[in-house]
């Protein structure tokens, strides 16, 4: 493709030499931007491994992984320090499993509801609800968990402390819900319509079709959704750290409320206190490497499964041409996986046991009356099938109700309590008396500056990379490597970005705690989103337009600049706004790189530290006692949620307008 293009331009006699030079330099510039993701991944790995090396050398990799005591503070306390990461690893796994037990049934139920059951009207309400859940920043979940959830658990289960395993799992479940729902929904949507129509035509009810045809066909996609949810949960930091209790104990199934310390919370809590250059600090880098490796494995396996689905769908299409019944083939292929599907549904049943029992009782009563009323056997069977359908839809609807209720509870608490704090003074003055008085103006501006800088850094790089990937290369080894880089960067936990920012920008480059360090750390974090959305936007431009432009004698770069880029700008903007929204809510990446607790003036230069809304909320919640601090924390949380949700809604609005106005 590249070769062909250069030949083409060479064959046009009117082409100026300088034009060709521009073409070449554009191509190389774009190539360089495309490599940024890969370079970043290697840089992160290199700096983390380098800092982790002393602990791995001292303890040995195996002992580090399997040692069952994490007591690194011994080094400064003066007792023998122990660096066994197993309790942290086990805690991360335990918390994630707990989260999945809750969010998998809820998420898949919601996905089925959105794609198969809901009317268009209801769908248009439920989808934004799920998207809004994704838009609530991690630190706001943590704040909600600390002031509401933990106390609620404590009272309703009559336990000593609500902080611990279950609290963290519940929060993570809510946070992983949007990921699971949207990916599972895509998978269910991708099931060919003929499958369902065939099943319905054979007389199966809607539920029978969903259970026996749709879900088995979408099973690998649903599996990928679960794996992505796991990736999201295992890398989550702020929310977990605020509610988990932070004791490095081995999780025990007998104590679902016990305090634990995960890989992420260990880094976030201890990094600030581990003496510089100590083994403790090296040990925390080791923990970060371990976390990164786990997340990489999780992400690679989900990419692998999603890739398989694509293959399968193309394969089934070609089979269809050969007139082999695709339904039968699919069914046979998924016989084994169907068992897993049953288990997933079983978990769904288990978790809504109370609802289940009520509904079953209603169902039995219904069936009993149905049996009495209907004499003929066939009609009987139909009735039972309909009844089963009603019960099943009841479960699914209750999943959706739970999801919507969760959002409702969180937003209600934050809005009602936050509105009391918000005033003109609160929005326009700097904090006083440790944030108990005054306002959050420097934090609002600081957040805008941080995300502004992040997107200024990420947008050109991401667009360049996307243009290179879609326009300048054929799918091959290079694109695979670049895409893998973006994929891995996308899955990298935010606390790892924070640690990298601290190690590389703050300490190695000597920028100190500065706005610039935070901007670039956040920019690197959102880069994959920018690349992905830009690529999608570029791909949606029909190929014919490019050919038309090239046929008129325009060069490749002229074509891209004048024909391909303009119509894809709305798509690119959607991606940029989504990225800004994500960056605005992040705490972990700026925790050690950019954020300052208090500041009366705004920063003079990019080398000054800044205040930021999420960090301010975190400090108010955890470090400032008193009722005034809590009121202002609610106010800060509300402003942050409004800011992020506003950005997300803007992105959704642009996307919808774009879809409507695009007619090729």
């Amino acid at each position: 493709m590249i070769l062909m293009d250069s030949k083409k331009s060479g064959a046009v006699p009117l082409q100026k030499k300088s034009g060709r030079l521009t073409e070449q330099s554009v191509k190389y510039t774009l190539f360089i931007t495309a490599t940024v993701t890969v370079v970043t991944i290697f840089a992160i790995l290199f700096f983390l491994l380098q800092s982790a090396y002393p602990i791995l050398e001292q303890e040995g990799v195996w002992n580090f992984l399997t040692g069952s005591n994490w007591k690194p503070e011994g080094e400064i306390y003066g007792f023998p320090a122990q660096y066994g990461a197993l309790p942290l690893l086990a805690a991360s796994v335990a918390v994630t499993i707990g989260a999945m037990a809750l969010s998998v049934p809820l998420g898949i139920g919601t996905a089925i509801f959105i794609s198969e059951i809901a009317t268009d009207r209801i769908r248009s309400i439920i989808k934004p609800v799920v998207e809004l859940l994704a838009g609530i920043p991690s630190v706001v979940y943590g704040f909600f968990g600390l002031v509401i959830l933990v106390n609620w658990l404590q009272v309703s289960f009559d336990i000593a402390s609500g902080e611990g395993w279950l609290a963290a799992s519940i929060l993570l479940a809510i946070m992983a819900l949007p990921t699971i729902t949207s990916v599972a929904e895509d998978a269910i949507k991708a099931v060919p319509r003929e499958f369902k129509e065939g099943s319905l035509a054979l007389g199966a009810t809607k539920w029978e079709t969903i259970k026996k045809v749709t879900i088995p066909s979408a099973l690998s996609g649903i599996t990928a959704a679960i794996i992505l949810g796991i990736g999201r949960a295992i890398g989550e930091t702020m929310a977990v750290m605020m509610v988990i209790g932070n004791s490095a104990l081995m999780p025990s199934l007998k104590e679902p409320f016990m305090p634990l310390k995960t890989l992420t919370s260990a880094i976030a809590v201890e990094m600030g206190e581990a003496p510089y250059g100590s083994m403790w600090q090296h040990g925390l880098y080791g923990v970060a490497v371990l976390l990164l490796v786990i997340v990489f494995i999780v992400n690679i396996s989900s990419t692998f499964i999603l890739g398989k689905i694509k293959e399968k769908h193309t394969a089934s299409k070609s089979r269809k041409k050969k007139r082999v019944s695709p339904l039968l083939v699919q069914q046979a292929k998924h016989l084994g996986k169907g068992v897993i599907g049953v288990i997933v549904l079983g978990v769904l049943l288990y978790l809504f046991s109370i609802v289940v029992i009520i509904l079953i009782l209603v169902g039995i009563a219904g069936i009993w009356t149905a049996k009495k009323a209907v004499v003929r056997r066939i009609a009987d069977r139909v009735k039972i099938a309909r009844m089963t359908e009603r019960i099943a839809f009841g479960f699914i609807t209750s999943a959706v109700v739970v999801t919507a209720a969760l959002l409702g509870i969180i937003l209600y608490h934050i809005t009602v309590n936050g509105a009391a704090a918000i005033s003109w003074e609160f929005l326009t003055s700097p904090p006083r008396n440790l944030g108990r008085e005054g306002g959050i103006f420097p934090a609002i501006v600081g957040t805008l500056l941080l995300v502004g800088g992040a997107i200024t850094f990420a947008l050109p790089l991401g667009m360049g990379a996307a243009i290179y990937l879609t326009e300048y290369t054929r799918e091959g080894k290079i694109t695979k490597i670049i895409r893998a880089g973006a994929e891995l960067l996308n899955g990298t936990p935010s606390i790892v970005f924070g640690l990298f920012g601290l190690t590389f920008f703050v300490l190695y480059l000597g920028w100190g705690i500065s706005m610039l360090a935070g901007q670039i750390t956040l920019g690197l974090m959102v880069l994959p989103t920018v690349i992905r959305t830009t690529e999608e936007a570029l791909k949606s431009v029909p190929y014919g337009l490019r050919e038309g432009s090239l046929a008129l004698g325009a060069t490749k770069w002229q074509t891209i600049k004048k024909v391909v880029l303009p119509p894809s700008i709305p798509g690119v903007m959607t991606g940029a706004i989504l990225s800004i929204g994500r960056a605005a809510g992040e705490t972990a990446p700026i925790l050690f790189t950019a954020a300052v607790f208090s500041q009366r003036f705004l920063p003079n230069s990019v080398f000054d530290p800044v205040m930021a809304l999420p960090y301010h909320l975190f400090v108010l919640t955890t470090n400032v006692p008193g009722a005034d601090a809590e009121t202002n924390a609610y106010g800060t949380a509300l402003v942050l949620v409004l800011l992020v949700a506003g950005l997300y809604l803007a992105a959704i609005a642009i996307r919808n307008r774009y879809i409507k106005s695009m007619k090729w």
Partner: protein
Amino acid sequence: MRRAFSLAGDCHMTSNNHKKIGKIMLAVAAITLVTAMFSGCLGGSDTETLTIAGSTTVLPIAQLAAEAYMDEHDNADIRISGGGSSVGVSSVGDGTADIGMASRELKDSEKAAYPNLVQHVVARDGIALIVHPSNTVSQLTVEQVRGIYNGTYTDWNQVGGPSRSIVVVGRDSASGTREFFWEFVMDKKDFVAGMLEMNSNGAVHSKVSTTQGAIGYVGLGYVDNQVKGINIENNGQYVPPSVQNVIDGKYPVARNLNMYTNGSATGLAKDFLDFIKSPDGQQIVEDEGFVPL
């Protein structure tokens, strides 16, 4: 024919859209630029900045002193960030902060890495033991406290209270407060497994104030009417945790709060440190519940 026509029509429509979008993009760019300039201008050229980072325990003192200092000195801009004692030490050592805050003394590894650090004690911090206000226990010996924290006593009726199991609340392993408590109260022995580990004084306070059987340790500034401070035995007398009792040497559990500079303090840093040590500064220290020098 019809197809070509419709294509042209659509192209026209989308190009209009592009103009609109172009304008939006331009507006966004302009706003970004203005914000950037705005932030550059506001600082002014004659302001002097002082960056302070480190321990969250010392942070309130630095913060409130900075507010008072900046009210007096218009051209001073003092930025304070937390991060923890170790962040304080390493950032002042590396020159990314002018003053580092730490609630502990320097460790040997830190002394080796940054030989020039100068210690300034700015206040003392008494550690209070707090329980739920409904708890009838109001006094303990250091031995009893140790017994509670090492798991010897698990029920309040073992230390003179009602029959209710004790919920032991402590700080996370990274905390300087915990380190001090471990050395001073625990005789360097292990804490009971299952102790709840909070990552701030505020979190310990809110846990104890909402949990009937709980006991926790916090800085004196966190003792208020939502929790009950425990009187600690010293030379046969039970002494309530208060600033005055620490000053008088009656209340036994207290430590130094430090600020470090790289070499002797100069300029704004010196002026600010002098202010904290002045009577006005020490009044702030006392108001926030810390012990003045």
